[in-house]
């Protein structure tokens, strides 16, 4: 057992790893060693089977047509499918807008509470974390209620035009606003971890005393240091927006996830193929993210999850 502790030099010292523990662990070792190994293998094998089966089976489902053998039609027909490119482009556009908006809002606020207004810090933290408490389905009930005020109460005021513009079919700004709210907790967590890792006041004071202007300090000194957490925030937001179904479908818009559901009745094979593709894309993005995030530290700390639609 003492052989298992090469790490944590602060607690292992010569005295305890000497003769006494070896003598005491010699007896249980033959009995307890093989058991965990078998147990561990069984657990990992079962977990692997459970997590891999749906992936393999759905791939088989898309390429194997009963009675006709193997065909990749579901994938080749995808690009020509009605609404595929349109909904995908809409989702990507929404994602880009959401990422820009959430970063534009969160970065200045978080830097500000670090260097100048520490008393605002708990306020900003609570405000950013509150959306976690509100499930998307509850948020959408509130949004539909607010949107209904437009025609009901404000139809004579200039605000009404704003209400209409926000719900424009081609680019529903209301979705960007809602997604930004949903993304704030994850953006905040990611940026806060990044800011905690660097010494913001010292960097700012060093840059300022070298004569840098404030925009220069933020753009050339702070943001480069935050690159990993900015990328993390952007990737999590992208995953959230690409997979979002609840709010978009209840507000009557048709981005990617809603489109998949809408074709599932007529073209089951294609809907599964698209699901696999969107999964693979999300995986690649998140793998990139975990690579970027785990270069310096070990894989632990903050779980890299967004509230992706579930």
């Amino acid at each position, binding site marked *: 057992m003492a052989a298992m502790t090469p790490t944590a030099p602060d607690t292992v010292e010569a005295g305890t790893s000497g003769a006494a523990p070896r003598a005491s662990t010699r007896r249980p070792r033959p009995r307890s060693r093989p058991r965990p190994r078998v147990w561990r293998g069984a657990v990992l094998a079962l977990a692997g089977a459970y997590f891999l089966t749906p992936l393999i*089976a759905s791939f088989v489902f898309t390429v194997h047509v009963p009675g006709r053998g193997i065909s990749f039609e579901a994938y080749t027909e995808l690009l020509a499918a009605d609404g595929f490119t349109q909904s995908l482009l809409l989702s990507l556009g929404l994602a880009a807008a959401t990422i820009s908006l959430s970063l534009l*809002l969160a970065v200045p606020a978080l830097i500000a509470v670090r260097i100048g207004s520490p008393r605002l810090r708990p306020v900003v933290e609570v405000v950013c974390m509150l959306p976690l408490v509100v499930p998307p389905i509850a948020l959408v009930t509130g949004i539909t209620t607010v949107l209904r005020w437009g025609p009901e109460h404000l139809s004579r005021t200039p605000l009404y035009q704003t209400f209409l513009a926000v719900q424009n079919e081609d680019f529903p700004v209301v979705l960007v606003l809602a997604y930004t709210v949903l993304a*704030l907790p994850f953006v905040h967590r990611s940026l806060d971890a990044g800011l905690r890792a660097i010494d913001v006041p010292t960097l700012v004071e060093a840059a300022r005393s070298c004569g840098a202007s404030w925009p220069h300090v933020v753009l050339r000194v702070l943001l480069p240091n935050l690159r990993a957490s900015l990328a993390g925030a952007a990737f999590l937001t992208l995953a959230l927006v690409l997979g979002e179904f609840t709010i978009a479908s209840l507000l009557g818009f048709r981005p990617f996830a809603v489109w998949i559901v809408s074709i599932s009745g007529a073209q089951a094979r294609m809907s599964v193929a698209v699901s696999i593709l969107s999964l693979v894309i999300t995986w690649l993005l998140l793998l990139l993210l975990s690579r970027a995030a785990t270069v310096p530290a070990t894989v632990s700390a903050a779980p890299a999850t967004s509230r992706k639609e579930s």
Partner: protein
Amino acid sequence: MSATTTPHPKGTAGGNRRRRRGPRTWLAALPLLAFTGLCFGIPLGAIAFGAVTRTDPATGAVRPTGEHLARSLQGPYLGSLIGSVQLSALTALVGGLLGVLIAQAVVTSRSTALRSAALTASGVLANFGGVPLAFAFIATVGISGVVTQLADLGGLGWSLYSFTGLTVVYLYFLIPLMVLVIAPALDGLRPQWREAAQNNGATAGQFWRHVGLPVLAPSLLGGFVLLFGTAFAAHATAAALVGGSVPLVTLKIADALSGNVLTGQENVALALGLDMILIAGLVMAVYLPLQRRSARWLR
């Protein structure tokens, strides 16, 4: 500081900076606060307001009432709330247990490749929810799914579109979430503690009962609560999978909003939304202190 007019370069520089920094930083946080107030506060207020008031269609008069909340806690709506809580509790319990087992198997293995692969895969799978997951499971164990036909699951009475089926699907993203949450805590369980217990003659059971579980308890509870909250808020998976055959509060809200039931249900939807926010708020109120407590042991 700047009250004295003596030309003291250091003093004036500091005073200058302080004076300029104060209002500026305050302003930088303002857009965020204004945005959340507008796009989050107003819908939230609309939920709370709509859930406890009634607008007379004829006169437009608004008066407070408890009837929507009362209705949201009766009949089919109460059933859906109970169904959601049951499903979330069951999946959180099973997912938590299995997640701990897998995390323990990964953490205690000495292969770093397995470890990093498992943790990365968990990060990815925990994000794999919603519509794609539902379709993957339909293709696998749905009515005409690949595994269903290979193993003749239909003959065994299996149905994906049921409470059990939904549990199996939810576990697919809940287990990895638990692995992510609990792995750091299991890492914090130092091998030296186990050795110390063994040197004092403790058995494995005694070690877990007196050292392991007490240290892990906040993380375990916190993980359970987080899983519960995630399962409770989940809507897209259930919507794409079961439609309405399993009573869940998220599906009921969606029905009421999209007018699939009687008109005039909007206020009940708002009341149900308020119920959900209260339950989720309770969950977070339990989770955050637990997380802070468990962070104590993780260096």
